[in-house]
């Protein structure tokens, strides 16, 4: 219980309110999100699950400001990312977010070290301290592969580099879209352990999309989606009650 109370005192990092997203493909309208509400608190590790096409990636892109919603609001640390200018949206992404994708998305022309360094330089937001960066790299378990190009690394290794790149500046929130989707179970476990550790040791807020029950089990909380909506109202209602009590 005390942990619950502690939780309620934490900041809201992500607040999603009645989020709707309709893709327009020529004259066709494809509804991807039909009213999504939820809140993620600082230090939470949330997994979003659901069948293919239910709108998980869309939701993640909207939170990351890579897309603009049709309607509804997304607050990142209190700032509405969908209504600020493109410049400010980029700034929020630059300073407050890290992305991890299923396809790793490392820059192929750069080594692992250079990939991470590039992110550090682009983000350069002052959160970066040498100590924690070092620890993160050690946690990677890739000290001797830092000078390898992506194609010289296994999928699991690439994904761990991608995670290091995403969190090197200690973003407020880490958004991961099926980070274990292309990995075998052993590599998946390593990546999940890494996320778990980031969350518990550094208090890193994480939202992860996954199909993998094991990955979902790693999270503090699971949000289940179906057909552009959140299914598990119960868990959310419990959460809302916690909110009210505080």
């Amino acid at each position, binding site marked *: 219980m005390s942990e619950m109370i502690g939780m309620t005192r934490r900041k809201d990092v992500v607040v999603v309110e009645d989020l709707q997203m309709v893709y327009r493909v020529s004259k066709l309208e494809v509804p991807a999100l039909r009213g999504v509400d939820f809140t993620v608190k600082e230090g939470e590790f949330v997994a979003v699950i659901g069948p293919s096409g239910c709108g998980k*990636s869309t939701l993640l*892109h909207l939170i*990351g400001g*890579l*897309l603009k919603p049709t309607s509804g609001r997304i607050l990142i640390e209190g700032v509405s990312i969908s209504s600020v200018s*493109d*410049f400010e949206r*980029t*700034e929020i*992404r*630059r*300073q407050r*977010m890290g*992305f991890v*994708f*299923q*396809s790793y*998305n*490392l*820059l*192929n*022309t*750069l080594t692992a070290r*250079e990939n991470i*360094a*590039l*992110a550090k*330089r*682009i*983000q350069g937001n002052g959160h970066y301290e040498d100590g924690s960066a070092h620890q993160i790299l050690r946690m990677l378990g890739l000290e001797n592969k830092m000078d390898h190009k992506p194609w010289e690394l296994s999928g699991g290794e690439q994904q761990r580099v991608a995670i290091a*790149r995403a969190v090197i500046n200690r973003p407020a929130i880490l958004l991961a879209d099926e980070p274990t989707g292309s990995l075998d179970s052993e590599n998946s476990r390593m990546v999940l352990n890494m996320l778990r550790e980031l969350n518990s040791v550094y208090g890193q807020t994480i939202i992860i999309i996954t199909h993998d029950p094991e990955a979902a089990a790693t999270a503090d909380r699971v949000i289940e989606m179906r057909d552009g909506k959140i299914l598990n109202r119960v868990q959310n209602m419990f959460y809302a009650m916690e909110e009210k009590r505080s």
Partner: protein
Amino acid sequence: MFKLILSNLRQRPTRTLVSVIAVALGVALLLVSMGLSYGQLVDTVRRAQGIGGDFILQPSEASVIFALNSGTIPVRVQKVIEEVEGVEAATPILAKFLGDQFHIVFGIDPESFGRVNSTLSFVEGGRFSEPREVIIDTIYANSKKMKAQDPLQILGHEFTVSGVFREGIGARVLLPLTTLQELNGTPDKATMFFIRAKEEVALEQVYESLQERFENYKITKTAELQEIMMDSTPVFKEFVTAMVFISVTISFLIILLAMYSTITERTREIGILKSLGASKSYIVRLILNESLLICAVGVGLGFLATFVVIELLMAAFPTLPVAISLFWRVTAAAMAVTGGTLGALYPAVKAAGMDPVKALGYE
């Protein structure tokens, strides 16, 4: 950013090399063509000034390129010129372009020429005294490996070289005026007069007097010859403009093509950079800097190529005048960079505007 640019350029070595070579080609083309045409012009001016007159009198319709119209002014005009107040001396010159040898010869009147010119000096032999004698300058002598007393064919007639003079005066080959008039079929005619003013008189005043007296002739101040020639040489300005335009266009098109093709195959990279929080301006700068680097290397290579081409040309044609001024070096570099930057602008803006989600090639 620099590392990313370098690694991208290295990733596509052929395209990088081709782009660099194309930019270099534009630079070298501009520099060599300007070097040769300006060289010709500057050299003509320098040698005309070397004759020593303060003014040149020509028929009013004449272009300042000598010798295209050879022999229209009666030689006796000399007397009239010398009667103008402030004129010290005037000397008639008949210029003749030798098509087969591709250079100009001057027919000069030794007596009056000596009064206008004070700098003719011989390294070997001396002035002509016979109708069939010529004098040649040091550059001509060196390139033809000739010395005094050697024979020389001009307009189908045999001449003897009586002396070799230090170059920089009039034409590379000078022969007696009367002989050239005869061979040219224009007896008693000259192409132009070189006029020397008295030292104590203001040039401007003599200029006005001459203009008043010779309304139907063109009087040119020798000191202003270069500008006047640039303005009046047929299509010189157009030629310069065309060369600059071509050079800019080459680097514009090649960079446009190179950058456009790189960004379409680099959509994923751009999507990644955006997801890392790179701003639009970062992407624009990335593409522009990459093109700038290609242009810079291209300019360097272009300078090198120009140097090599000029050296080869000089070895083949020692009399060829070449003048590549700092101005044209800077201009060539600026044109390459301008063209390249303009060419990269559209791809850069297009890259910056890419939808990051699509760019990530989402599966």
